[in-house]
C-alpha cells in the first residue's frame, strides 16, 4: 500500500473510530472527524473505519468517493474554492475561475505541482446576493473581482 499510516496517525484514527462506532449513522461524522484531523481520508484509514463500524471496505470507500467534500488525497497547503453556480455565473464567475487558474498556476480540480495550492470549483457558498464568491481556507470573500483575487493571491505566500 502506497499510502500507509504511521503509528501515531493509526492510533488517532482508531480513537476517532471508538468515539463514533456506537453513534447511529456514525459513518459521516467519523469521516468528517478523520478529514479534520488528517486533512483528508487516506486509503489506509478505510479498513480501520470499516472494521470499527462493521462495514465492508467497499461500503466505506463508496461513501468516501460519493461525497464531493471528502478527499482521498492530501490537498495543497492552501485550498481556494471558486463558486460557479448560477448566481455567481451571472456576475462573471467563469471568467474569475479562469483568472484564478492563471494567477494560482493550477487548473480547476487540481493541486499545483509544488503542493502550494489546490483550486476547486464549488456549487454555492450561499452568498448569492454578493456574487461572485470564493473561499480561501475557511475564509469567505464576496463581491470578488480579478483585481481582488490578485491581491489575495499575493497575500497567500504561495511561493514562486
Amino acid at each position, binding site marked *: 500500500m502506497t499510502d500507509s499510516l504511521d503509528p501515531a496517525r493509526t492510533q488517532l484514527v482508531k480513537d476517532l473510530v471508538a468515539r463514533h462506532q456506537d453513534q447511529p449513522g456514525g459513518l*459521516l461524522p467519523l469521516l468528517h472527524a478523520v478529514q479534520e484531523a488528517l486533512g483528508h481520508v487516506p486509503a489506509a484509514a478505510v479498513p480501520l473505519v470499516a472494521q470499527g463500524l462493521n462495514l465492508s471496505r467497499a461500503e466505506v470507500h463508496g461513501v468516501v468517493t460519493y461525497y464531493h467534500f471528502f478527499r482521498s488525497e492530501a490537498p495543497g497547503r492552501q485550498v481556494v474554492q471558486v463558486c460557479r453556480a448560477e448566481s455567481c455565473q451571472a456576475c462573471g464567475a467563469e471568467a474569475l475561475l479562469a483568472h484564478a487558474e492563471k494567477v494560482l498556476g493550477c487548473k480547476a480540480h487540481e493541486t499545483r505541482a509544488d503542493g502550494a495550492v489546490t483550486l476547486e470549483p464549488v456549487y454555492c457558498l450561499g452568498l448569492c446576493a454578493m456574487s461572485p464568491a470564493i473561499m480561501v481556507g475557511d475564509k469567505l470573500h464576496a463581491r470578488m473581482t480579478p483585481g481582488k483575487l490578485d491581491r489575495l493571491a499575493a497575500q497567500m505566500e504561495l511561493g514562486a
Partner: protein
Amino acid sequence: MSTIKLYVPRDAAALAVGADEVAAALQAECAQRGLAVEIVRNGSRGLFWLEPLVEVATAAGRIAYGPVAPEDVPALLDAGLLQGGAHALSQGPTEQIPFLAKQERLTFKRMGVTDPLSLADYEAHEGWVGLRRAATMEAAAVVQEVLGSGLRGRGGAAFPTGIKWKTVLGVTAAQKYVVCNADEGDSGTYSDRMTMEGDPFMLIEGMAIAGLAVGATRGFIYIRSEYPHAIATMNEAIARATAAGFLGDNVCGSGMAFRLEVRKAAGSYVCGEETAMLESIEGKRGIVRAKPPLPAIEGLFGQPTVINNVISFASVPIILARGAQFYKDHGMGRSTGTLPFQLAGNILHGGLVEKAFGVTLRELLYDFGGGSASGRPIKAVQVGGPLGTYVPESQWDIPIDYEAYAAVGAVVGHGGLVVHDDTADMAQLARYAMEFCAIESCGKCTPCRIGSTRGVEVIDRITRNQNRPQQVQLLRDLCDTMVNGSLCAMGGMTPFPVLSALNHYPADFGLAAPNQKAA
C-alpha cells in the same frame, strides 16, 4: 457617558466583505478615543448591498451606516456615529430604509435585530411563546393549528406541512424523528443560512413544536458542509437551549423529551432530496429511495419521520404564538403566509425580501432590487434554484403563488431569484443545467444519470449547428423522458431550466424567434 450599543453583523455574507475587520476597527478606535461602546454581533438585516451594515442604537431608534469599510471608521466617529450623526454612508433609521419598510416580516422579524445567541434577546422578541403554548396543548391540537394555517413546505415541493405532521402523529412507533433539511444547495438561496446564523432559536423552537406535535423525541438538522458558520451557530444555540430547558428531557415542562443534533452534510446536492438526505444521515451514500413508503411512515432508520425545510419549521413558532388565522390572513389562494424571497445574481440591491404571496417578480426586481447590478437590461430570472425555470419578461407581472406559477410551468421553489442581464447566453445556461445534473446525479435512475450527459452533448450539437432542427427535437424528447421517467426532482426538473431557455430564448440556440406567442 453611558455605554452605546453598536451592531455589526456576524452573518457569513457580512463576514465575507469584512464585518470582522470593521468590528475590530470600531473597537480599537473607540477604545483609543475613550468612548464606551458595546458591539453586538447581530444577524444580517438582509440588505446585502449595504453590508457591512453598522447600526447604532439611539433615542430615535437604530440608525444604519453602510457599506462600511474599516478605513471609514475614524471619519464615521468624527461625524458623530455614536449619536446617529450625518455621514455619506448614513442610511437613516434602519426600519425606514424602503427595502425593509415595504416588507412583511413575520418569520424574519427578529433577523438582524437581535443577538442570535442571546436567549434573553430571543425571549424579549416573542421567542418561545409558540413552544410554551404548544407544551400545554394536545398533540392533535398543535397539528390542527399548523394544518389550519395553510403552511406549505418552503423547501420547494409546497406540500402542506400539517398533513405531513398528521400522518406521523397517526402512526404508532417506539421512536419517531423530526429532521430538518438544511442542505440549502440551490444557487440564489440563502434564507436557510441566514436563519441558522441569525435566528437559530427560531428553528429550534419550530422543531421542538414539531416534536411535541407528532410525539418524536429526537431531531436532526442536516446542514451543508459549505456552511461552517451556520453549523457552529446551531451547535451553540442547541447547547444553550438545552441548558435552559427548551430542549432535553422535559421540553418547557411538557413532560415530553426532545433532543436535537446537527449532522454535517458532505457536498452532495442531491442530498437535498429528502430520502437521499435520510440515507446520508444513516451514514450511507446519498442515493434516492423509491417512494412509497413515505418517510412519514418509514423514514429515518425505518421510523416515522417528519421532514421539513428550515423555513417551514421557522414559520411554525409564529403560527402557534398568534394562531393559524393570523398567518392565513397573509398571502393569496392556497398559498398562505409569506415567503422570504432572495434576490441574487446580477441585481443592484441583492437581499432578502419577505412578502406575502401575491407579489410580482417585477416588483421584486425593480421596486426592491433596483434593476441589474451591471445597469444592463434584465434578460432572464431563474426562479426557484437550479431546477427552476428561466422566467422571461412576459411573465414578470404574474402574482407569485404556487398555483399561478405552476400554471405557466414555473416553480416558486425555495424563493431564490437569480437575475441575468442581456449578456447571458441562455444556451450555455441550459448546457450548464445538464452538466450540473450529470455531476450531481446520484446515479440510481437512468433518465437522470445518462440523460444529463446526453443532454450536454445534444445542446453542444445544437449550438454547433449539427443537424440543428433534428437535435432540437431530440432534446425535447430527452427532456420528456427525464421529466416523466426520473425517480426524483433532480432528473425530473433539470429539463425545466433547459426547456424554458429553449422556448423563451430560441435565438440563443441559433433558432429563429417564433412569432410573438403567448407565454
